[in-house]
């Protein structure tokens, strides 16, 4: 039975009468209050995550120079940027390593510096033509001196992920950080039941055009993410048993700031970007509350052995996020220490910040303009011939 529409929620936001809870607050109270009473009371539930999302990038239009320049190659603080668009357009990827030696930096750090308002050195080589005569450009850029600066992230907000362990004999340096030999540690990367898309397992309340918290500013869901895999096996509560749905996100980077956008580096793996992303769910009916009530005891992830460097790695089976967050799981009959890679502290803070924005009337909800695909298969690249 419908309780309220998104338009009615926005009217409440405008009048300052909206009731917003974070998903953590909801999970805590729903046991006592029951789904029905929560659904009648709460208009919006906010979710958040803060984790490395290497499939992130910034788009810059630097503003044309005089005489004009058609950029063929460019580096921002020594990190190569892609210039195969318009003459003054650049894209810098979070996981692009620097070309400077002995530096553990990359695109993620350049994006962080620009977001923070720090100056970044640009070196650009031009493709001289009759309309673009300039041969090169060296200057410094800040977010205030470039014409446009926004994030466009092809894959963020993984709906669940894996747990990495190492059954081998030497330390492995992975995108989950160092994995110690002989099952020395286990690393999980999703905040579990707090993860935004774990609370909307079938992508019912989010879609293309959904306004979100992105890096401390406002952003939008732009498209399905790369490797979007909604057909992943699911539990009875519809949450996936491994990596599943993903989304592409977009947002004005000038509205973003610390600590929500941070460059990071994984030893012997490479650079990445830690990003805070928050998604609000309009409580249009009781099913929203029922889905958001899912607990860490009820969501699982597969434990994968990184000692086998293949696309499909052997699994030690499923563990719950409650076990992962307890600090210890059992793998192959042995106790193994767990550590998160997502910041659970900042994940909670994202949801709280978004809650406060909505309650203060500075963030309104949107209805999706189109649904995200729910039945997309995954095609792997199997080399033929």
């Amino acid at each position, binding site marked *: 039975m419908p309780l309220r529409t998104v338009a009615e929620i926005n009217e409440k936001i405008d009048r300052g009468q909206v009731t917003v809870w974070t998903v953590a607050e909801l999970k805590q109270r729903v046991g006592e209050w029951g789904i029905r009473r929560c659904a009648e009371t709460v208009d919006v539930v906010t979710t958040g995550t803060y984790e490395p999302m290497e499939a992130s990038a910034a788009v810059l239009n630097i503003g044309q120079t005089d005489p004009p320049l058609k950029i063929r190659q460019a580096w921002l603080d020594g990190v190569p940027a892609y210039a195969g668009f318009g003459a003054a357009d650049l894209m810098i990827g979070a996981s692009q390593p620097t070309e400077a030696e002995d530096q553990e930096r990359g695109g993620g750090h350049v994006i962080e510096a620009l977001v923070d308002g720090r100056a970044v050195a640009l070196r650009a080589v031009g493709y001289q033509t009759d309309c673009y005569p300039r041969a090169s450009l060296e200057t410094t850029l800040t977010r205030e001196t470039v014409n446009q600066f926004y994030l466009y992230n092809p894959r963020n907000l993984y709906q669940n992920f894996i747990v990495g362990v190492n059954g081998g004999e030497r330390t492995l340096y992975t995108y989950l*950080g*160092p994995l110690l030999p002989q099952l020395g540690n286990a690393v999980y990367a999703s905040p579990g039941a707090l993860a935004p898309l774990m609370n909307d397992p079938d992508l019912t309340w989010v879609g293309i055009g959904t306004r979100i918290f992105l890096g401390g500013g406002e952003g939008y869901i732009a498209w399905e993410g790369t490797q979007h895999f909604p057909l992943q096996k699911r539990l009875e509560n519809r949450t996936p048993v491994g990596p599943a749905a993903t989304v592409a996100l977009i947002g004005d980077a000038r509205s973003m700031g610390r600590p929500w956008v941070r460059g990071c580096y*994984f030893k012997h793996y490479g650079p990445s970007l830690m990003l805070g992303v928050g998604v609000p769910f309009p409580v249009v009916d009781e099913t929203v509350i029922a889905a958001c009530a899912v607990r860490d005891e009820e969501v699982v992830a597969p434990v994968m052995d990184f000692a086998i460097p293949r696309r499909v790695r052997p699994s030690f089976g499923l563990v719950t996020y409650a076990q992962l967050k307890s600090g210890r799981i059992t793998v192959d009959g042995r106790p193994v220490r767990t550590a998160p890679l997502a910041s659970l502290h900042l994940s909670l803070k994202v949801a709280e910040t978004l809650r406060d924005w909505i309650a203060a009337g500075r963030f309104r909800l949107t209805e999706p303009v189109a649904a995200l695909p729910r039945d997309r298969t995954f095609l792997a690249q199997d080399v033929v011939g």
Partner: protein
Amino acid sequence: MKKRVTLTFPRQVVQMPVTYRLAKDFNVAANIIRAQVAPNQVGKLVVELSGDIDQLEAALDWLGQQGIEIGLTSREITIDEESCVHCGLCTGVCPTQALTLDKHTWLLNFARSRCIVCEQCIPTCPVVAISTQF
């Protein structure tokens, strides 16, 4: 037993093959954690010495006789609160659970008294928030 020490070498002792003498004369294994040695300069070595307790003591006495200054407390691990994002990745590699996450706030806790300065957390931190200096 194991003992972690910081050795400061006067300039004239830098030429001496100290770890070789420790192994040969005292059967003490010296695992070098950090080193800063150059010809004709004061050198520093952080080593974890392991061996029989009496031989360890004898080795330390001998080091003292060579004019090598022995510091039992090496530098401490420092966490930059401004930089730390509380991801907790370091808690999985910390052998003594000096680094833990608070189960309610999920903030990183550092119990300095439990830290053995193994420094495994330093390269693990993705945002370079953990450091130690000579």
